[in-house]
């Protein structure tokens, strides 16, 4: 049955005017309610040398104590440690995952330092891609572990970026949103800080490192993002200890020469970092990760596997060809494996057969040997038996002869006794 669908092209989209209140202005609220019930995910990756203050900064940012033991400097290589926490503020549930690079910058040979980090990020993309490509998938309650923001901690040398920093950032900039920050900023004086920041930014630009750009296309946030961008990289100080300042307690670091207040904008850029990272751009960071970095990864991965998008006419065919080719390859492999297995099986069977035959032969030999021994024994026994019988016969003969003699002797004796008795009896007739 023919289905004719009259559908105007996009240019003819009319803006209709409404003659009354329809009520779909509640749509953003409906959307927000849905998202609230599902909860949000946010994953931060902290890249920086051991002891530069990553854990402390996280504690300070989220106003809580994520318990962790300080890392040693003896790690043989860089490894990533991921921890997940669930935070709740009013009715918003946030699943926060903080990934730490343990042992970064501690090795003598730092050539491969960036590799575990890149592998980790790729692994998260891979996991999401696999879930997306499953036949039966459940994306809406999938725990998203893709890294949304990477805080790169720059050591406060005051001069310029280290080559390790440049190399690592260059490897990461197409995979994750990088926000560079200067750690332990209380060790740099104000005038040095300004020079340091401009040096860093110019080095990043000249090396082509693409850091995260705060979005300026939305009127509500464009202004604040633009003003904050000027202060990149943020010079931060982290502290979870509170010091009494005036009549309030505030997070600060106390030195003999003064107190560095974390939330004082004159002292450090911590407040700016918190604004940018959490209060203004968290959603944009997640969106960029999903629509830019993840799509790039997906595209590269699928192209690597041999899929192509040509123009719509030949798309089914090229995919079909790839499909057929891969299928044949796969079947061929299967066949080869089957052949191999079969051959091995036959070989094994033969071996076993030979073994068994050997064993059989051995058994036969043993049996023959036993039989012979048995026969020998039997013969011996027979001989002995004959001997015994002969002896018995001899004995019987002798016994018979002896008995004869005895009876003869008895008879003779008996005659003698009778004679004696008669002799005794006659003279003595009436002695009793």
């Amino acid at each position, binding site marked *: *049955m023919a*289905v004719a*669908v*009259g559908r105007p092209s996009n240019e003819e*989209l009319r*803006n*209709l005017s*409404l*003659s009354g*209140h*329809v009520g*779909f*202005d509640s749509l953003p609220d*409906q*959307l927000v309610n*849905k*998202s*609230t019930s599902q909860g949000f995910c946010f994953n931060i990756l902290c890249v920086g040398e051991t002891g530069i203050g990553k854990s402390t900064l996280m504690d300070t940012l989220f*106003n809580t104590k*994520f*318990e962790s033991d300080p890392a040693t400097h003896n790690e043989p290589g860089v490894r990533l440690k*991921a*921890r*997940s*926490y*669930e*935070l*709740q*503020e009013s*009715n*918003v549930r946030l*699943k926060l995952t903080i990934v730490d690079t343990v042992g970064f910058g501690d090795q003598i040979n730092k050539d491969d330092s960036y590799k*575990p980090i890149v592998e*980790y990020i790729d*692994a*998260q993309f*891979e996991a999401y891609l696999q879930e997306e490509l499953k036949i*039966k998938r*459940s*994306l*809406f309650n999938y725990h998203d*572990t893709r890294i949304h923001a990477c805080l790169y901690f720059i050591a406060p040398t005051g001069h310029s970026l280290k080559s390790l920093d440049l190399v690592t950032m260059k490897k990461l900039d197409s995979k994750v949103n990088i926000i560079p920050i200067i750690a332990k900023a209380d060790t740099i004086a104000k005038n040095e800080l300004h020079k340091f920041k401009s040096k860093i930014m110019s080095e990043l630009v000249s090396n082509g490192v693409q850091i995260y750009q705060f979005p300026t296309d*939305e009127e509500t946030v464009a202004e604040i993002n633009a003003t904050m961008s000027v202060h990149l990289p943020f010079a931060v100080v982290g502290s979870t200890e509170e010091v009494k300042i005036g009549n309030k307690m505030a997070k600060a670091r106390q030195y003999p020469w003064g107190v560095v207040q974390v939330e004082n904008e004159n002292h450090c850029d911590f407040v700016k970092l918190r*604004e940018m990272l*959490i*209060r203004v751009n*968290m*959603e944009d960071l997640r*969106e960029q990760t999903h629509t830019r970095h993840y*799509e790039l990864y*997906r595209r590269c991965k*699928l*192209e690597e596997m041999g899929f192509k*998008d040509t123009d719509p006419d030949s798309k*089914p065919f090229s995919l*079909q060809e*790839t*499909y057929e080719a891969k*299928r044949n*390859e796969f079947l061929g492999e299967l066949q080869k494996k089957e052949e191999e297995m079969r051959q091995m099986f036959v070989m094994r069977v033969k071996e076993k057969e030979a073994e068994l035959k050997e064993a059989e032969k051995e058994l036969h030999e043993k049996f023959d040997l036993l039989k012979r021994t048995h026969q020998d024994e039997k013969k011996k026994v027979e001989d002995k038996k004959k001997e015994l019988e002969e002896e018995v016969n001899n004995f019987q003969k002798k016994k018979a002869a002896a008995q004869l003699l005895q009876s003869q002797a008895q008879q003779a004796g008996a005659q003698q006794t009778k004679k004696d008795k008669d002799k005794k009896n006659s003279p003595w007739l009436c002695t009793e």
Partner: protein
Amino acid sequence: MDPLKRSPPPCPSPRPSSPRTQPCEMLGHVGIETVLDQLKIKAMKTGFEFNIMVVGQTGLGKSTMVNTLFRSKVWKSTHPGTGVSMPQTLQLHSETHVIEEKGVKLKLTVTDTPGFGDQINNDKCWEPILGYINEQYERYLQEELLITRQRHIPDTRVHCCVYFVPPTGHCLRPLDIELLQRLCRTVNVVPVIARADSLTIEEREVFRNRIQQNLKTHCIEVYPQKCFDEDINDRILNSKIRDRIPFAVVGADREHLVDGRCVLGRKTKWGVIEVENMAHCEFPLLRDLLIRSHLQDLKDITHNVHYENYRVGRLNASHLLPRGPGWVNLAPATPEQLTSPRPLRACRRPHDDSEEESGLSMANPRPASS
């Protein structure tokens, strides 16, 4: 409160498992809740999309209902059927508009089905409708499977289908039942009693009960589906709605003067039937359900359940290997695939781990190297 530590083994690709971690207590305001405002701003900027389809026989007031729902002349042309000969085949007719209210932009697409059920032989008259719905799913699937995807895939999938039941007063007709059975597996269906001003209140109740019984007998699950209720609040709210389904509605796009107020209604010799008046008809319930409270939910169920079901069916059908890793064959869907019914399988929260087949084998991207 100590957060549970989750340190995966130090291998090159550690992936933290889904955390069932205990919540952390925060000692001060961090500002996480501002993410809601960020979401709102982003949503208002990109705008919303909504696609609605109205299905029913000619003359039941579908076009008028759409106009009443969105308070505007959605249809450019005059009502079909007035002086125009009956279309020989079922033709679906779509119109897209952008409407804005208080800064919220909504791209609305309404699909009408003139000629449905009008022929003498209505056998398989649902096929064009199902074909259209599945075609939209197919379009979205093709877009989703591209290597280079668009940033925002245009969503033309039908989010809601409003089915107009003629006000016979008796029960559902076989045509209704057949169509509803097939539609409910593919799309969210909201049945309404059209032209309810021809029934009295008591007749409406009787009709409604009979229809509900019919739906139960034939296992037709209309929106809001019972199996997708997320928690107890949802269930309570949705049960109230389910009690009143199907809504008895009246559509009108003319305004009349009643008691000094200007109201939308139908004027007859014996009175004015006010559309917005709950005592007269249940149009406000329909409008609230579709627009004010459950619009996002309709879209979510379409995306998470109906589209996923379609996708599973398509990917399984193109699997030539019986089991194991295979490669997606994206030959264009045959017409049978587009109209064959599929069982409503996926529940919103899949608790049991049904077998997970991979459409693309990722473990061995290069078979030779394994």
